[in-house]
């Protein structure tokens, strides 16, 4: 139990640093900005209590906001994503029992399950994030393009990470 806890804290710190120091400096024509740090929320164990899910998502978002001077922007998108997560899991559940202490992963749940899971949650987060950042409808389609392109890149990194770090987890 403690190990899972420490593992998640380590992941929290690593993902924030990775996002702030590397991904935020990536520049692809002004439209693409991958937000890989939400991988933390994707990987929280299945039996995480919902209040902890919401609180840790809030902390994650507000920590990233401190580095980009956008207080509340990432936090609200992350809280929304964490709120939606249990509904997504139950909606796409395959009926098999999830093992205690396990995180959602491509190896355990299969490609199809994990793809549905991550695509829905990343889209929820990115939609909330980019439309809150603009907060006007005049640039609707331009923002939609940003949402979709950035989501593709975030998902790409998520899948690369899945194949890199969890290749033999049983």
């Amino acid at each position, binding site marked *: 139990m403690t190990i899972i806890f420490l593992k998640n804290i380590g992941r929290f710190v690593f993902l924030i640093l990775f996002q*702030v*120091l590397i991904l*935020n*400096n*990536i*520049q*692809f*024509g*002004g*439209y*693409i*900005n991958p937000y890989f740090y939400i991988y933390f929320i994707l990987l929280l164990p299945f039996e995480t209590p*919902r*209040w902890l899910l*919401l*609180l840790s998502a*809030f902390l994650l*978002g*507000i920590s990233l*906001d*401190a*580095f*980009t*001077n*956008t*207080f*509340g*922007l990432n*936090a*609200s998108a992350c*809280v*929304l994503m964490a*709120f939606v997560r249990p509904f997504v899991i139950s909606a796409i559940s395959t009926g098999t029992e999830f093992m205690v202490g396990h995180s959602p992963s491509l190896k355990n749940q299969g490609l199809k399950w994990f793809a549905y899971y991550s695509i829905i949650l990343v889209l929820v987060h990115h939609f909330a994030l*980019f439309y*809150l*950042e*603009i907060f*006007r409808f005049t*640039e609707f389609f*331009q*923002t939609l393009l*940003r949402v979709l392109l950035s989501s593709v890149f975030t998902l790409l990194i998520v899948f690369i990470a899945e194949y890199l770090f969890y290749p033999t987890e049983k």
Partner: protein
Amino acid sequence: MRYLLYFLQKQYIYFLFLALEAISLLLLFNNNEYQNNAVTTVSNRVAGSLLNMSSNVSEYFSLRRVNRILAEDNAKLHSNRSEAFYKADTGSFYQNDSLYKLEYRYISARVINNSTNKRNNFLMLNKGHRQGIENHMGVIMGNRIVGQVVSVSDHFCWVMSLLNKDSRISGKFKKNNQLVNIEWGGGNYQIGEVKEIPKHVVIHKGDTIITSGNSDIFPEGLMIGTIDHFTIAQEENFNYATIRFATDFNSLSFVEVLIDMMRKEKEDLKNSFKSSER
């Protein structure tokens, strides 16, 4: 009462969700009012020292370009020295103190965090209160504008870059002093929008836009950019154009913060005018 407690207990997750969302949205939409509160000061210090470390490493990669820019600036300054002028009458170069008062002071600062890929971009500089920086000061690079200071802690400050939806610069055509507004519409960081160009102004591609000096933030005559494309409106009263920024926002490493030495005087004047209006 028991049912109420039961209801709260059963539905607490929704209340927690709503409470957290409310906190974040309040923070988001009141950001301008709470800029200098304790939370931002502490977070500025933490974020600032980390970003400072990261920029200490990454600045080595841009040394060659920074050197070139410094050499250019040096050359420009040399050409302004009195030795560079033909001395017909030495007396004419004497600067009389009562005529020439220092209006702007420049503080050089290093950019330790910058972005151009978001809709609202900010820069963090390694200078703060201790070095005399305050809110609403202008930030420039050479004679090109960068943005304005929006939040200051002891050793760092956040600068709202021109690449921000809240940024609105008052500019004018260099050739005929016609006033326009410059904004950034997202997307390409090199291209901005020029709004409210009066219909009678003849626009050409490559026309230079400079700051108007109407705002308190920038003095007159700083370079903003050149006209890139323009459309002549048929039904509306104003024409529209896009502008290619003179500043390369993606490669900022050293900038200058403008300290207006007469700002207090200007503000006092404005306030006295307001109070006499009442």
